[in-house]
């Protein structure tokens, strides 16, 4: 086995029924070349179970898992390599750093087979790569969240694994910190070229990381490809909702304006018309349009002089506070859901029955096949 010289493909074809009566059956075939492949889907879609199967922590009912020519699991040949022999690195959502060991001791944990000198060299190298060398003598409990994520990555990657599994490892970090960790991960992988499976249900992370995306829903792969193809035109309603599209509206294409790259869609049976980016459709086709509630602007008077093409007049149906924001439901012939800040609610004197105008940019309208 040598994951550093060859560039092995991770190929998976497994089936695993959940024990205990839950209806989820994981039935997945996928291939991940070196580089970052994102596994995207709602919670409970089976993403973590899939990673557990790959790492050997859970045994699939049937199927085959290979990295390059190495068989890690093959139900037909009764091969099931135990986790400690798979050379697959796995960073859990909880990170699972050993609380009683220092950062350096955590990192050295997977290097017990090496002689002392080599162990120290490799530890020093990886601590530097992930910028945690100053924390080498600190315990996980004494460092920040971002530092812990870096330490966990360093601990997993120091073993020169054949593949890396990341289960929402950057949850709870701010965007800047995320970006800097991802940058270091990319730099590391530019040299090592191993398949990295990155599980997330966050749109932002998909945008920031995406080489390839595999969308998983109810234990099955529902689509794969570049992030733009998989997510910006969400193919499945649930996926769209998972990705934060609160508005999913069906409509009829009225006409295509190809020079402008747009088309007009009438929503439902109403008179409400909106302009959306040009898609694979022709006049008269039924389409679904997905719009995030956070992408809709509200105005208390008819707005003028805006670049946004969609300005819809409507009547406020309800206004509910959810945490630090308000959810407004507005009837424009069809019902839209928009998110508004408490400040805006006060400034616009928003209330039920009030007449309002919705403003939606053309490119905030996503076409769903």
């Amino acid at each position: 086995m040598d994951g550093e010289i060859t560039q092995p493909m991770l190929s998976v074809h497994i089936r695993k029924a959940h024990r205990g009566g839950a209806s989820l059956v994981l039935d997945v075939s996928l291939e991940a070349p070196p580089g970052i492949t994102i596994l995207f889907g709602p919670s409970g879609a089976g993403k973590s179970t899939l990673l557990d199967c790959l790492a050997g922590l859970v045994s699939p009912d049937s199927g085959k898992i290979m990295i390059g020519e190495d068989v890690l699991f093959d139900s037909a040949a009764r091969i099931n390599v135990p986790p400690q022999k798979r050379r697959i690195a796995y960073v859990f959502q909880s990170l699972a750093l050993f609380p009683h060991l220092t950062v350096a001791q955590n990192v050295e944990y997977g290097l017990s087979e090496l002689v002392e000198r080599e162990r120290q060299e490799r530890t020093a190298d990886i601590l530097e790569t992930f910028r945690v060398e100053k924390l080498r003598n600190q315990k996980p409990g004494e460092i920040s969240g971002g530092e812990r994520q870096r330490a966990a990555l360093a601990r997993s990657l120091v073993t020169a694994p054949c593949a890396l599994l990341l289960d929402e490892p950057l949850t709870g970090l701010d965007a800047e910190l995320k970006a800097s960790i991802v940058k270091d991960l990319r730099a590391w992988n530019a040299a090592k070229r191993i398949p990295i499976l990155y599980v997330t249900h966050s749109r932002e992370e998909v945008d920031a990381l995406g080489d390839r995306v595999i969308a998983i829903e109810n234990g099955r792969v529902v689509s794969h490809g570049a992030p733009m193809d998989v997510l910006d035109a969400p193919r499945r309603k649930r996926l769209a909702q998972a990705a934060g599209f609160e508005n999913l509206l069906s409509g009829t294409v009225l006409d295509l304006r190809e020079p402008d790259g747009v088309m007009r869609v009438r929503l439902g049976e109403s008179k409400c018309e909106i302009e959306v980016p040009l898609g694979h459709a022709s006049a008269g086709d039924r389409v679904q349009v997905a719009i995030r509630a956070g992408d809709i602007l509200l105005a208390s008077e008819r707005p003028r002089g805006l670049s946004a093409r969609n300005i819809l007049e409507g009547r406020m149906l309800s206004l509910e506070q959810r945490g630090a924001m308000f959810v407004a439901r507005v009837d424009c012939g069809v019902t839209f859901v928009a998110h508004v800040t408490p400040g805006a609610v006060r400034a616009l004197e928003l209330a039920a029955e009030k007449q309002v105008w919705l403003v939606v940019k053309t490119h905030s309208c996503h076409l769903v096949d």
Partner: protein
Amino acid sequence: MSSLALSFELAGSVAAILLLIGTLVAYWLAYSNWRGKFLLESIVALPLVLPPTVLGFYALLAMGPSGPLGKLWMALFGHGLAFTFSGLVLASVVYSFPFAVQPLIASFEGVDRKLLEASAVLGAGKWRTFRRVILPLSLPGMVTALVLSFAHTLGEFGVVLMVGGNLAGVTRTVSIDIYDRVQSLEYGEANHLALLLLAIAFTVLCLVYAVNRRVWMPAWARWTAK
């Protein structure tokens, strides 16, 4: 040998043996997926609810000249097991078993499973995971097990009386000594020993609670960091 020294020797041997056996049994009980493990759990907990005389009675039968253990012992060592120090150790191990095993199970189960999985994917087998992750994180449980089985053995009476009888220097432990002295109206001597046992019991419990409240965790952390 004084009855106090004998009691300490007995309690020390029992605690040491129980730490070893108890760790094995507790590890298995904490991590096994066998559906019938409640059977073993019940057997381990039996001494908690049985009167010591019942346990002692059956231990005596088993260790007697016609009992299976007694016969085995005779074949191996050429003498019987009942009314000997070894017999006392054996019966006490059974009697104090839950006091060692229960805290060990609790602390093994308290170790985050994700840490064990992390250890496995980092290439460690079960033994290495046990030594480097479970054991250091279970130290308070091990101390509790050691101290409780020691203290419980120190204070036992019924089992010792049934299995050991009352042979000075061989099986007369301090609790039996106290009983003896009360019977012969030596209240001053009895009080002496009783006070001593009281003090020991209190110290031991303070130790257990302090460890579990992590009073000494900073010191422990410094020690494991080396």
